[in-house]
Each structure stands twice: as structure tokens, then as C-alpha cells.
């Protein structure tokens, strides 16, 4: 009986993992779903909104697109809009971003001496979104006790649940 429950739990975890990895392959992004962390894109997106990304190399970066990028050496991804692009004949591109709700562009956020972003900094392009849902992740991050409570109840549910 215990053997069965452990297997059951294992199946759930590996299915979730497969779906996540599958999404990564289909969208081409290492992080196909992200949560909006700041208010810099209001009123379009608010803290806690969930964004669905794709990162297909064939899709060219054009102004007006909402990109999620990471600044070299920093972990937190930023969700802003492309303000300017300069693309060379060979496809090499450098671009500038700005949050809709910010007064200035993102040059101040880039690394010291860095004036532009490049394709390699991009995590993905926002193609769709769902509001509010991501608030759970933010809550779990800000209030670790909440995270433990969620995990505890999840574990309890799986163990107690009978077929």
C-alpha cells in the first residue's frame, strides 16, 4: 500500500516535470512561464500576472514587442517593451527596452558600460497572459511559512487520497 502511494507521488512529480520540459522545447524558451514581479508594465501587467513566452530564433525582435530578458550576471528576469532596434545585414541585432510605466528607458538597469541588449539576453517574447494567478508564487516567496504550509497540505493530500 505504501509502495503504491510512493509510486503515485512519483508519477505526479514526473508528469509535472515532463509537461514543463515539453513546454520548454515547444516554446524554445528556458522559462516558458514567468510571473510579473514589478509594476513597471502597468496598467497592462501587474505584480502576480502570469506570462506565456516563446523564444523561437526565427521570430525577429521588433519594436513594440514585450520581451523578458536577463541582464548578464543577474538572476531576476525583467519584462519590458522593445523601444529601439538596430539590426545588421547578418541578423546581428542590438535593442533598447523600456517599461511602459517607467519614465526613462532601461539603460540605467543594464550592466555598467552596456548600452544595448542582444539576442542572447532574451529569455522569451510574451505571447499571452493570465492575470493574478502568479500571486501564489510571489506569496510563497515572500512568506516562506505559506510555502511550507502549501507543500505540507499537498503532501498530505497525496498520501491520504485513496483511489
Amino acid at each position, binding site marked *: 500500500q505504501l509502495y503504491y502511494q510512493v509510486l503515485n507521488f512519483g508519477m505526479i512529480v514526473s508528469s509535472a516535470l515532463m509537461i514543463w520540459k515539453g513546454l520548454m522545447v515547444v516554446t524554445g524558451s528556458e522559462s516558458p512561464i514567468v510571473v510579473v514581479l514589478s509594476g513597471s508594465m502597468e496598467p497592462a501587467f501587474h505584480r502576480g500576472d502570469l506570462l506565456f513566452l516563446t523564444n523561437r530564433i526565427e521570430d525577429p525582435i521588433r519594436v513594440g514587442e514585450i520581451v523578458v530578458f536577463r541582464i548578464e550576471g543577474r538572476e531576476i528576469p525583467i519584462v519590458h517593451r522593445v523601444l529601439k532596434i538596430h539590426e545588421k545585414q547578418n541578423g546581428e541585432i542590438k535593442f533598447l527596452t523600456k517599461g511602459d510605466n517607467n519614465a526613462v528607458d532601461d539603460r540605467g538597469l543594464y550592466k555598467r558600460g552596456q548600452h544595448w541588449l542582444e539576442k542572447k539576453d532574451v529569455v522569451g517574447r510574451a505571447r499571452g*497572459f493570465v492575470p493574478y494567478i502568479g500571486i501564489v508564487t510571489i506569496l510563497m516567496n515572500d512568506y516562506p511559512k505559506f510555502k511550507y504550509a502549501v507543500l505540507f497540505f499537498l503532501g498530505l493530500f497525496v498520501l491520504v487520497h485513496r483511489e
Partner: protein
Amino acid sequence: LRKNLEDFTGPRERSDLGFVTFDITADILDGKSDLQSIFDWNVKQLFLYLSAEYSTKNNALNQVVLWDKVMLRGDNPKLFLKDMKSKYFFFDDGNGLKGNRNVTLTLSWNVVPNAGILPLVTGSGHVSVPFPDTYETTKSY
């Protein structure tokens, strides 16, 4: 949707800086092509932006957003903007604006739904702006 404008370039450090003034009119032309019709039950806002697109010796493709605006559901959907100055500096990456006859201005918008897909739409109608061959140092903007 119609735009028209005047322009001149000024030298700044080593890159060309363009100055453009423009009018934007978005109005009912045939009962179907106004912005109001884009606001269906699932549209929360439109993010409008005017971008300039052109080619230079340095770069095959350049796009610069000159102006943008958030139009919320419920805002007046008719735009009658005249003599607008660009919101952002129109710097080129180099000196490609001088004498460039083929700078195209287009109005586009990002439809932000309450939930769902985020499409980018380009408006019909665009205007070409020819930049002069000389730099201006005296005109004030």
C-alpha cells in the same frame, strides 16, 4: 489613420539625431476602421506606438519608437493629435539619418486582453519622411 509631419536633423556627439513633428488622426472613415471597434469584451487596453523604420549604411534595419500612449478601455477612442513632438530621442546608431529619403513612420498597437493572447497590430497607412542632407544647428525644438 493619417500622419503628416516636418523634420530636420541635428548633430549630437557622433550620432544623428532626428526631430520629427507629427499629427495623428484616428477617426471613423467608413464606420469600421476606427479604434473603438478593436475594443471587444476581452480587450483591457491598447498600447499605441508610432515607430520610424529605415535602413542605413551601418544597419540593414532600424526601428525607433518615437511616441507611445496607453489607451484604456473606456478612454476616448478618437485621436486628434496635432504638432506632436516625439516623446523619445530619435538617435540613429551612426549617421544614417542625414539625407535618408526613406524613413517610414507607422502607427501600431499592442492589444492587451483581460486574459489571453497578446497580438501586435500594424495600422494601415504609413508616411515617408525624407530627412534633409544638411544638419541644422539653429532651429529650436
